[in-house]
């Protein structure tokens, strides 16, 4: 059983549908007691850091995620879920976040020029990941594959060793991080076609 953390941040059913496509069983829940029964956790999310944190604290999911991480349960962060894993976000005038990994979340600069072309924020659309080192969850992916991104903020880990993939949008930013039983993606694997499904499937089989 895979637990999908519901903290009122965006459409979680698309992640669930992608799991169903492979025949995995899942629950969507905001109740830590329910989620404790899951063998692995997916922490998705679209939206703003502050309201996400408020909702996580209110439900006790903040403590649940910290414990789950320490316990060694495989966790997959997606988009806002990935950002909230770090210590602090620039969003909403500065928001203290979960702090499972050291580092912060910054906004793309605006206005944003690269070689005379104006780059748009949010970074929305398909882009590549330049993989930095191998990881079981990301094995067998063609380096030319692209993934679907929608975000205005990006993570800046303190320790470079957690960075597994970077993406270029005017600047190079970390788009894939991993540490111990945690993997986290800035893009949406559930919306990235077959390569994204492959990552989800490999996460569901991963035993760190």
């Amino acid at each position, binding site marked *: 059983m895979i637990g999908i953390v519901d903290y009122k941040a*965006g459409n979680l059913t698309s992640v669930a*549908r992608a799991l169903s*496509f492979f025949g995995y069983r899942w629950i969507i829940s905001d109740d830590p007691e329910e989620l404790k029964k899951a063998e692995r956790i997916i922490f998705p999310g679209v*939206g703003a850091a502050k309201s996400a944190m408020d909702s996580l604290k209110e439900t006790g999911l903040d403590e649940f995620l910290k414990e789950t991480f320490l316990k060694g349960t495989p966790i997959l962060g997606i988009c806002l879920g990935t950002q909230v894993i770090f210590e602090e976000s620039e969003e909403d005038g500065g928001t203290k976040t979960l702090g499972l990994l050291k580092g912060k979340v910054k906004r793309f600069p605006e206005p944003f020029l690269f070689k005379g072309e104006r780059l*748009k924020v949010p970074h*929305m*659309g398909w882009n590549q990941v330049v993989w930095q080192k191998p990881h079981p969850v990301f094995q067998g992916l063609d380096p030319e594959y692209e993934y679907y991104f929608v975000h205005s903020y990006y993570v800046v880990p303190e320790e470079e060793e957690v960075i597994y993939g970077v993406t270029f949008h005017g600047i190079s930013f970390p788009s894939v991080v991993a540490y111990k039983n945690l993997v986290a993606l800035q893009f949406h694997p559930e*919306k*990235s076609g077959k390569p994204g499904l492959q990552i989800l499937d490999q996460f569901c089989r991963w035993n760190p």
Partner: protein
Amino acid sequence: MLSKRIIVCLDVKDGKTTKGIKFKDNVEVGDPVEMAEKYYQEGADEIVFYDITASAEHRGIMIDVVRRTAERIFIPFSVGGGIKSVEDMRQVLLAGAEKVSVNTAAVLNPKLIYEGAKAFGSQCIVLGMDVKKVEPSSKIPSGYEVWIKGGRQPMGIDAVWWAKEAENLGAGEICLNSIDADGTKEGYELTITRMIAEAVNIPVIASGGAGHPEHLYQVLTEGKADAALIASMVHYGMYTVKEIKDYLAKKGVKVRTKW
């Protein structure tokens, strides 16, 4: 670097895909769920369903089509047509769409964009605009006027002004359709596409008029669009999405070519 997106649009009427010319004379071309899946497999970067069902009692059919499609395609997926309220948006999002597109209702009630963005996030809200060329005037300095109701009613508002206004209200993307070019297969309307793409900081999707891959090349380079919408070109088997992408890639446009 971001790839330019190729978006396949399906007009859906009473649960079937149709295609018209200049917004008229729709003919049935197939089952939307199967067609969406086929385009997903062929490498479309996004799918749009546009509900042209006239009657309110058939809205449920559309929700069902959206739900069945969402189980089979794993790329972004938007739904537009007849969306009048935050509740309408909620229904299509819950059924599995990523984004909703608002057009007529947003012109009549611009607050809808703001409320939708607040409820679901800007990334969910696409402003659909239908524009037609007119003589530039003090009221319409760009020379492109906004029309509503599927191209049946002029509004006396300037297209560039409206695009900027929608961005300020919280729209996350603009899908710009030229009524003059729609269904003609003679190419996108490059002038207004470029004007709007340069005026706003959100992505602009060009729509209406594609008949040859060169038209996509033009609108994605000269027209400065972030994405190009296609329909007839692929619905009648003239081209596959892959052929169009290969053409663009050969000419140096960055597109997603592996999936």
